[in-house]
């Protein structure tokens, strides 16, 4: 279904926001992805994805506290919305469905 289309990176970001729950802001999300997935994430890519997800209604954001290390700038915390949850569910369902549809023989041949 069209309305739940998520890109691969978007899915990761959405999931990470969900993992971090109350503490999901730019730096933490980035670090979480980098440590879990062992890949470098650029601020630009992350922010673009976050804003896009927000625009799609899967995330909502609010300003949090400002800390000294941030030069007095406030954090923007992200939270997964209901729609975001549905999107994640949907994606997962699709994957599961796809997995279950694979006949066992496939991998034997693929292994060759």
């Amino acid at each position: 279904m069209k309305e739940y289309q998520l890109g691969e990176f978007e899915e990761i970001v959405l999931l990470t926001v969900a993992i971090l729950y109350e503490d999901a802001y730019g730096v933490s999300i980035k670090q979480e992805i980098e440590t879990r997935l062992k890949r470098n994430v650029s601020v630009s890519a992350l922010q673009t994805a976050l804003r896009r997800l927000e625009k799609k209604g899967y995330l909502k954001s609010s300003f949090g506290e400002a800390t000294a290390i941030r030069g007095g700038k406030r954090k923007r915390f992200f939270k997964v919305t209901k729609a975001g949850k549905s999107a994640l569910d949907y994606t997962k369902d699709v994957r599961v469905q796809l997995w279950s549809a694979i006949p066992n023989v496939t991998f034997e041949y693929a292994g060759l």
Partner: protein
Amino acid sequence: MQDYKNRPSPPPWSTRFLAWFIKEDYYEDIQGDLEEEFQLKAEGSTLLRARYWYRWQIMRLFRPAMMKRLKPQDSIEKETTMFKNYLKIGFRNLWKYKSSTAINIVGLSTGLAAFVLISLFLKDEISYDKHFENVEEIHRVTVKNYTVDGDVSRQWAFASAGHAKRLKEDYSDITHAVRFYPWAFPDIVVEDKTLRGEAVIFAGDDVFDVFSFKFIEGNAETAFDDLYSLVLTEATAIKLYGNDWRNQNILGSQLKLERGNQEAPFKVTGVMEDMPDQQHFHFDYLAPIRFIEMLFGEDASNNVGGNYNWLTYVRISGNANIPELTKSVNDEFWDKYIGTTRSGAPASNFYDFEFQPILDIHLTSNLEGEYENNGSIQQVYIFGIVGILLLLVACVNYMNIATSHYSRRMKEVGVRKVIGAFKTSLVKQFLTESTLITVISLPICVLLILWALPYLNNFMEKSIAFNPFTQLGLLGSLLLLLLGVGLIAGLYPALFLSKVNLVQALKGEQSMNSGKWNFRSWLVAFQYTVTIALIFSIAVIESQMQFIRNSNPGYNREQVLNVNIRPIANLETFKNELLSSPNIEKASYSSRIPTGRLADSMGSNYFMGDSAVASGFRLPYIRVDKDFLDTYEIELVAGENFREGMQVENMFDRDSSGNFITASANYIINETAAKSFGYENPADILGTVITYGPSEGRIIGIMKDFHFESLHSTIAPMLLMYRENYRRLSLKISGNNLQNTLDFIERTWGDFEKEIPINYTFLDESFNDQYRQEERLSSMIKVFAVIAIIIGCLGLIGMVGFIIETKLKEIGIRKVLGASTQSIWLMVSNRFLILVGIAFIVALPISYYLMDGWLDEFVYRTRIGAFIIFLPVVLSVALTLIAISYQTIKATLVNPVECLKDE
């Protein structure tokens, strides 16, 4: 905890860059994130790395999704909505003030149409000959003749037969040379069709190298291979072979050239495209000049002096220095090929070549024997000025009406401002409205042009095309022009209104009129200036034309008919036959007639004691019979007329040893000639013997000076000789029963010449034809100037009305306090009269200077009298006063209560 003060800071430039491009509400948290991570990295690894990372991240953030939206993107929607509103308000206002809208549209569209017409005309005028390839290299060979005193007596557009060949042979810079010779207008016979007197032009072999005529059939290389080749233009091909000539394979088809009883077989070797109108010569047939050389023999087609009948063009290689080339040619050529003249002086004293760039010919050349009528650069300037004035007047007019019209909308401006309109949006609104009017004017303007162009073409003998739909560039430039005009015209009201003080605007005060001498007064003054200058110019032109029309040329030009008598063999009988009619009073043969040119001339000597001294002036002659003076009613100041038996015969006959046989001749000269010979009292020269050309003779009569040529030149010395070889017959006819007389003349002609129809002109027509150029110019200028004046007047009337309207309250109060209609009238007129005065002071010197220059082109010119000077002022004052009176009386007749109760 860290010491905050000593913490490293991220690169400030990158931060600033980020702040510049990123969306406002993203900036805080993203920059915060970046800084946080920067600090972590700065601790974890090196500061340098962290900085590098920071910069890199920001570089990567520089992408559309993160950027601020551009302003216009943001406001497009708002703009279009507002624009719709401007349009709606604009249309409503146009509709509400119908009369000023009408004045505006009429003024603008006529002004623009006139401007476009003038531009089209000028564009046509300046585009002559530009279509030739290598046009910069093509020059016409012209020959200057000098008098003994070293003054230029004539400059010929033609060269001698032998010039082209020798110039090309002797000078390597002259890469090609071609001469044209129109031979005798032969008849052309194609199959069973005969075309009489066609202008077949014989051209040298280089013709297609000099001029890039485009061939439709055949080609330039082989066209003149054969002696009897004939190249046609498309129009002549149609004339000869019909519209479907392309299907007839006419290349190689035979036709005959006939003249008298000579005939020659020619064949078609090529068809060229028709020569464009914008070319200073037009040929219908081209044939190789070798044919003429064969016909005339070596000698006649090779002479190097005199006989200027050969239109000659050369191509001078692009890197040659023309002035130097001309100098070296003049230094060498005449000495080499002529040496000395008959009187023993070196020929180089009397002749000079001038290589005339072909692009200069149409506008600036007016030499002896131009092949076709040329334009004049003077005319281009005058029209240019008039065109620009027209456009300016239309714009100023528009601005005037627009400002007065907009001032009614002060309150609207005020309300818009209160609601929050920016100054710029007000400017936009009024610019929109002003372009609205120009856009409406466009179709009207185009229609006007389409309507007027045929008249212009007809009148100026042009074929200028205007089709805005096929000439897209034209349409585009017209649109641009209109928008430009709208912009210029709308700019002042737009800026002015948007600047208006809010409070004043809302109170409805006409703050713009409080200053007595505001910008608009100057616009009105400008309007007056142009109007006065134009009326003045028209008056000067008109009075000069009157002067010419009424000037007495010194001979009778009424009821004189000229007949070209070339084909008639028995002249004496013909004349007697004609004189038998009671309606033909006098008849005279001559070689040339007044209004023609004095082109034939020979050297003259007079005797001082025994030795003949060359007279140092040009003394042209015409051949006449004894009735010439009588027919033209030219008086003799002294001496007597020719009598029967005085004819000079055998003038150019030579005796067996080759010397001219000197005939004893009788001459009549004019007063100017007598004076030039040095006789203050012309009668004293009577009986003096002079030599003229090869013959020697006595001066038997002095005739009163008359204008043989047009009034453009001074009366020149001239000489009459009684000698046959006539070309023209002049008939003085009685006024009654003109048609019968003409019928009789034609019948008589028919008895003598069966084939060629009679060809006659009336002298007064030829006389007026001399000034056709000026007549045309003056009527064109008159038309356009009148348009400009009308537009200006419309504007002035509108202005007066407006000013009265703004003063209605003042007038009302004055009336209540007991002012009379006259005093109110005076109060209003005062200001306009001052403006007229200023305009007069500005306009007069400028236009006087220009028109005086124009008059200087005439040798005989009218004087600019007081009447002409004051006429425009009187006219414009009268006009203003009429407008003012009308409006004032209207205003004063209104009950003061009506205008005071407002608000």
